[in-house]
């Protein structure tokens, strides 16, 4: 899909709304469901990867420095990463209130 579905006009829809391109679920912004977002204190992180393993949306990925970071486009703010983190490095904070 070349543009977000909120920009499609009715004339552009394939007959029967058939989805012709695979993999377009990646364009679905589930990130705007959340009220709380995960914030990582890097000094506490031991790079165990449990957040990455437990994340039900596979929103976490490894960055260049070796930290697992949640992609907020997909993160629904469920807080499982924060709950499972063995060192308490991830806290859930209201959007816009993080320090």
């Amino acid at each position, binding site marked *: 899909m070349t543009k977000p579905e909120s920009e499609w*006009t009715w004339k552009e*829809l394939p*007959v*029967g*709304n058939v*989805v*012709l391109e695979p993999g377009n679920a990646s364009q679905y912004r589930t990130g705007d469901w959340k009220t709380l977002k995960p914030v990582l204190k890097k000094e506490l992180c031991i790079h165990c990867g449990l957040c990455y393993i437990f994340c039900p949306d596979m929103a976490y990925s490894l960055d260049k420095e070796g930290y697992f970071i949640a992609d907020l486009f997909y993160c629904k703010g469920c807080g499982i990463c924060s709950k499972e983190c063995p060192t308490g490095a991830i806290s859930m904070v209201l959007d816009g209130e993080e320090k």
Partner: protein
Amino acid sequence: MGKRVGMEVSVAAAEAVKQANVDVISAYPITPQTHIVEHLSELVANGELDAEFFCVESEHSALSVCVGAEATGARSFTCTSSQGLALMSEITYIASALRLPIVMIIANRTLSAPLSIWNDHSDAMSIRDCGWIQFFVENGQEVYDHVFISYRLGEDREVLLPVIINMDGFILSHVIEPFEMIEQEKIDQFLPPYQPLYRLHPDRPVTMGAFALPSIFAETKKAQEVAIRSSIPKILDVWKAFGEMTGRYYHPIETYRIEDAETLLVTMGSFSETASVAVDEMREKGRSVGLVKIRLWRPFPFEAFKKATLQAKQLVVIDRAVSVGGPGGPVASEVKAALYGYDSRPSVYNFVAGISGRDVSPSDFIKMVDKAEIEIEEGNKEGYELYGVRE
């Protein structure tokens, strides 16, 4: 000219489905069902029709199988009645939104309660807004003919919509009528093999029936609405091509002796033949009465309807279903909406008659016209009543 034979209407309908060379038939085999699928199961079992026959556990499954089959590009067919259609209703909306050109015959029968097996249009009206092209036919030949018309129409790339052929249960489905059968070579020419636009195939995967967010749902409905509304010229084209092949020409609104008529009866389905007898009797007595028959119910042919009726003084609309607590019968509501806003428009007097198979004879139509003309004369211009109910 094709061979003329006497046959039960349901059996002739099954023969048409065979001649249309369907790939998949899926149906719930017992009440409420007709001889259509009974005969089709024989044809498949005898090897006379090379198709898959799915004998499923419910009508919900029957139409679901057709949706799946049609999505792979198979020409599919089902039929049902009354409670069976009610159980199927969820899937009727899905088939049309997915733009799958399934053809279904409904032998119109009453929805319970009280439990009834006889004819009326309450089943068809329960899925009025399901998005299928919907015909109401008048006799057995029209059922037979519309099987071919419906497949050719629905499968047209510019249409791609499922089609319902409504025929009155028992009054048509279980009677023996003369049929002019069309030669197979002609059918094969009229109805080429189905070439789906999209289909489920492992070589080219697509997703059908995906989820839609509020940000795009309205756009999908607009596309569907425009598709069915703009199918009218194509419907006319297919009827014209069929007429050229058989000599039987069909129209969205049929008229009978409407010239200069002050009063027009408006009917749908098998009522129409009986009403035409009543019109003849009234015309013989010098009364100014004609008949307007609605053949195309969805998309509703507003322009053709207005053209046929706007000049009349009054319309007597005969419904075969009750819209409980509503503005009158469903056909009358449609008629009133079609004429609304015209300064000079006929009064619309509405009767609901013949529900649950109660006989309506030509003399009943005359009584209804008499009653409507008197009521309108006395100032009750938009009356509505259930005809023949004992007080």
